């Protein structure tokens, strides 16, 4: 029991460190897309680890914590994808270090094709 609690506490600690690193990425990264990358990944794993730690410390709560973890695994990537897509469509610039933007090229080609059909 006691050892399980200590293991859980250390897992919780590692989770909170990952959350902290994610927010550090939020501050340091140069543009929105990189920030979304750092933020989503780190916060997802950080939260999962913290929930695992708490589940180890209080084993009787495992079911709801598992549900919360599943919910976060599904929703977190979806919301970051929707946000990234919206930022691109709203015309938020990529950083100067970006090497290629196939999505912009694709959208421009599509738009030209549509205008070509209309005229």
């Amino acid at each position: 029991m006691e050892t399980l609690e200590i293991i859980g506490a250390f897992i919780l600690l590692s989770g909170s460190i990952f959350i902290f690193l994610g927010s550090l990425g939020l501050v340091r990264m140069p543009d929105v897309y990189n920030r979304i990358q750092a933020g989503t990944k780190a916060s997802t794993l950080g939260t999962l680890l913290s929930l695992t730690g708490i589940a180890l410390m209080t084993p009787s709560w495992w079911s709801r914590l598992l549900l919360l973890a599943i919910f976060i695994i599904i929703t977190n990537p979806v919301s970051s994808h929707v946000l990234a897509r919206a930022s691109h469509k709203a015309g938020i610039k990529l950083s100067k270090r970006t090497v290629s933007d196939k999505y912009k090229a694709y959208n421009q080609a599509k738009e030209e094709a549509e205008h070509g059909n209309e005229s």
Partner: protein
Amino acid sequence: MINTILIISAGFISLALLFSLYRFIKGPSVSDRVVSFDIITISSLTLIALIAYISGRSIYIDVALVYGLLSFIGVIIVARYLERGI
């Protein structure tokens, strides 16, 4: 022993909240603010679970569930508004 570890992790999460808040205030675009809002909610969700453990009340986990749900829908609403979806 365990108490010390819990305090250290709460400290890390609070630091994360602080950094995200910095990005939330400074962030040049709306998307930056939404991302930091998302991180703030996720970190506070962890904090809620931690508080549930400290106070020993499992009902706070329900609160965390609702909070996660609302953060998801909030982010999607703002994002869809940004790309003129609603």
